[in-house]
């Protein structure tokens, strides 16, 4: 076992702030949508806008960080056989107590499925939400260009459902699949993670 500094300070800040903002946005967003009632419409809409602008700023920093530090390479999709191996593990091996088919290190933090999931979060779900979100904020000024709120709201709601589903799967895997109970949670707080020494495969 070795203790690896896996999650840098910025990454942890980004992760936790993003978590807070996404949960706030989901709650207030579904209030604006009329699904839940928590704060009142005006307050919900106000918090939603504030959280949205903060998240946009954070995402801008995160994109810059990924691009300048080379961290973006950690999202390059793995070969198909490794993805299949991961699927086999979650579908079968995990029940039999098989060892994890992927060994993580500082520069290979994500298993092949995580790479796919986070990549789609960054280049699909994220953009669907922020592009439709910006249009939602500015549509009174865009109405002259024939832009209607209907497709904007539709895409934004779709993005919200995808984000919520992502959050559920993420929480399940992050909180229950570490070797030690809540090991990943601890890692994401302290930055350090305990890792098996043996070299299996890399993503």
């Amino acid at each position, binding site marked *: 076992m070795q203790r690896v500094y896996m999650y840098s300070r910025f990454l942890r800040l980004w992760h936790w702030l993003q978590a807070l903002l996404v949960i706030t946005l989901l709650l207030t967003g579904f209030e604006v949508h*009329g699904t839940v009632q928590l704060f009142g*419409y005006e307050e919900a*809409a106000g918090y939603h806008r504030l959280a949205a602008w903060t998240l946009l700023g954070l995402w801008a920093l995160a994109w810059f960080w990924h691009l300048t530090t080379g961290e973006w390479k950690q999202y390059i999709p793995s070969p198909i056989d490794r993805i299949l191996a991961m699927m086999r593990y979650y579908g079968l091996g995990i029940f039999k107590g098989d060892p994890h088919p992927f060994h993580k290190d500082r520069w290979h933090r994500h298993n092949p499925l995580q790479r796919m999931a986070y990549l789609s979060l960054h280049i699909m779900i994220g953009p669907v939400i922020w592009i439709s979100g910006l249009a939602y904020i500015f549509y009174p000024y865009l109405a002259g260009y024939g832009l209607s709120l209907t497709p904007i709201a539709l895409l934004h709601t*779709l993005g*919200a459902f995808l984000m*919520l*589903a992502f959050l*559920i799967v993420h929480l399940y895997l992050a909180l*229950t699949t570490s070797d030690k109970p809540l090991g990943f949670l601890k890692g994401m707080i302290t930055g350090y993670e305990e890792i098996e020494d043996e070299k299996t495969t890399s993503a």
Partner: protein
Amino acid sequence: MRLLANLLIVILAAGFSVQSWSSTAAQDPSTADHSKFEQLQGPFATGPDVTEACLGCHTEAAKQLHKTSHWTWAFENPVTGQMLGKKNVVNNFCVAAASNWPRCTSCHIGFGWKDDTFDLTSEKNVDCLACHDTTDTYKKFPTGAGHPNYEPKKWPPKKGKTRQPPDLVRIAQNVGTPDRDNCGNCHFYGGGGDGVKHGHLDSSMHKPTRDTDVHMDIDGLNFSCQTCHTTGGHEIAGSRYATTAVDKEGIDVPGRTDNARATCVSCHDTAPHGAAANSKLDEHVDKIACETCHIPTFARGGRKTKTWWDWSTAGRKDQHGKPLVIKDPQGYDTYNFKKGDFRWEANVAPEYRWYNGRIDFSTLGEKIDDTGVVSINRLNGSYDDPDSRIWPFKVMRGRQPYDTVNKVLAVPHLFGKDSEAYWKSFDWGRAIKAGLAATGQEFSGEYDFIETEYFWPVTHMVAPKEEALSCQSCHSRDGRMAELKGFYMPGRDRFEWLDLGGALVVLGTLGGVSLHGLARLVASRRRRNP
């Protein structure tokens, strides 16, 4: 010491006198004391005699008034070209002025409009006092065709209170700028009684509280009608027939704009909510009229307004054979044998429609489609029209007679001493025949009653800002805008298939990870205890 005290008294007295001078100046800025005028010493036998005296100095006044719809009861809509005004339109209260002149024209700014022969060029028949009486004692008699009573007379006839004739000399010597009471004596009682017609104009507006009207609040701004309905040469700004649904000119600056302050924007500007307010509010002005949020309900001054009038049930008698009148606990008629069934409401939430200021009216003799509810006036506007806003309306509904063969709304001859009048004979056939004849139309002999609706833009009784509608009033599933279709509104609208699909995905995911977790738990137990 005494000197000091004297000095103090002098200073205080000077202070008081300055103060009293300035407050009188604010109340009465007139440069003329009409009681000193030789021409106004009387005696005056009739209203027109007073007018002749007025015109002796105010030589152009009657000519100015002759051009206004207050006088002509006719108004050419500059947008539609329709000839409107009380003389030409039909409504679903007493339906039409034609054939009922002397009753209706008790609110005309003239004397003697008792039938079609009234001379609209007569100068001495302009009634100056209706608008310029400051004593609050000038009253036109309800059936006097615009005249006050010159002898003591009972109203209602026979069993009512005796009305003394107004003191025309005193009134003439005390003329001045109109106040709320002058306008209100007619406009608060439209439709035949207090608050009947508009609901946002009623007797509570003589001395409104802040809650009733934030601008006219007697303890606050205390606006008169002309503060907004700016006047010049007896023309008055602001029209219900040709509404300014959108004012893009901003604050009204002399020399730059039209000098009319009859829109909210002419004082409050086009971005009225201020930097401290939620910026989303100013972003609503491109779709929402100010009145929509700021007049959350009308008939807010403790009076009720009429919202339903069913003529078809008129004429009933009680078990003793006497004409039937039923009143609600507050004393409002819910049934009157002369007029049928009524519904009255207070604190009424308006109905909302897209509106660009153009209303098409049904005028006398216009063919109607009798297959459904007849809209006597039809609003124009839509979400896609950049000049439309969501406006609040009082929608007056009721049932009224129409000619089932010729498909025209009947003009019932209601009031009059002749036996054709409905309120004498209680025979609809005769009343409709006489009314239609008076407007040059022929009656087929067949009539029935049809449901109609009439839209009245709600513009008065602006509430204090803390009473304005909240976001949630409209942004909720069954909010105020539930009826307005054709656009997406957050909080109200959703894509049901997307919400269903989304819920399935989210619940499916939850179920999936739960099962996966459970299976792992079971599997690991088995591994440990095979």
